[in-house]
């Protein structure tokens, strides 16, 4: 009996370990999410733009963000594998505040759908949440808008090597 229990425990452990890289978050009809909570800022209208129409790129360049991301990940000191892209898509409201609802998209380096290790995605999401300088989206005529934005981490052999856009 105890042998059976041991075997069962070993099989369960193997199952859990091998399944780790396919673990998911909130899977909704329109995709996978890290967080689904969304509260409409009452000061903002329901209308939204896309980041590129309202000057909404994060106000630090890719190299600066990359350095910060690498420093953040070094603290965790985990080793990961695989290459591709991990993208977070989200909304910045008309006052420049990021809404918690965040979609996550993942591809391999050939742009085919893929799942990285859940811990890597969680760590990148942890870094992403430290970014607090999102700008207020403004049109050319000075009106403020909520906007949809994204941040992509380019991964090579488990390491972040670039940040988009």
């Amino acid at each position: 009996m105890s042998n059976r229990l041991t075997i069962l425990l070993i099989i369960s452990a193997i199952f859990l370990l091998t399944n780790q890289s396919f673990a998911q978050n909130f899977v909704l009809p329109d995709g996978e999410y890290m967080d689904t909570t969304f509260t409409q800022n009452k000061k903002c209208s329901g209308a939204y733009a896309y980041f590129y129409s309202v000057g909404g790129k994060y106000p630090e360049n890719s190299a600066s963000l990359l350095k910060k991301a690498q420093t953040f990940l070094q603290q965790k000191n985990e080793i990961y594998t695989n290459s591709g892209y991990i993208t977070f898509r989200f909304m910045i409201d008309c006052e420049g505040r990021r809404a918690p609802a965040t979609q996550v998209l993942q591809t391999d380096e050939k742009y085919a759908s893929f799942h990285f290790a859940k811990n890597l995605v969680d760590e990148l999401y942890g870094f992403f949440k430290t970014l607090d300088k999102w700008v207020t989206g403004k049109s050319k005529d000075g009106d403020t808008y909520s906007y949809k934005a994204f941040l992509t981490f380019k991964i090579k052999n488990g390491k972040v090597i670039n940040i988009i856009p």
Partner: protein
Amino acid sequence: MIEKYLVKGAEKYSYNSPQWQLYCDSLIAICPNIAEAYQLKAIPYIKYGDYAKAFPLEDKAVELEPKNYTAYRGFLKCIFTKDYEGAIIDFKKAQQLTPNSYEMDHTYPFYEGLCNLELGNYSLAEENFKKDILIQTGGDTAKQNKVHFNTFLYIGILYYEMKDNEKARKNLQKCIAVYKAHPDANYYLGMLYKREQNTELKNKYLEIAKQAKSKGYSMNEDNLYYAYYPHQITLYEINTALQQ
């Protein structure tokens, strides 16, 4: 069909609208061999980070019309997804298909130069930019004024990274001679003087870069709204450098 479904169909709407997709899908259903329908359908996906949807469409466009879309896909890989190895493969292929042509204002070797710069393949990047100038001038040294200012910018950045200060300075100044308020050229010139411990000139050029950026000057490339170009700077990098 293109006129009906794309010019007078999809293109009458925002590419983020459902109608855009509807017109593209309709044309693809009726005529599955029109590359432009796939390329247009992919636009909202590439601009909003959905690469799994975008690239199969780009690949289909390339498969159908390699002469028209190989360089474009290379451009997307270079600027939008920073897939520098993939972009180089596309631009090399494009050079065979349509030699010495342009994509988004620049020659194919220009983009190869950006990719090799970012990959740290500096001698290859140097060769790429020489080829870029050769194509732009047709080999006539008297036509240096035909060279795009961002070619000089990136040659300057390349030599800055190679720590060849004199060549970097010469090329950044060529860029500034054409476009005085170029924020990135002034920034890298400032950083070069910082390296040389010339605080006065460092601050001078960084302040010019800061003023230019604050007034809305940029590298003046069409796709800056969507993605940062390689080595492109923001006010954050300028302010950080000024504080050091």
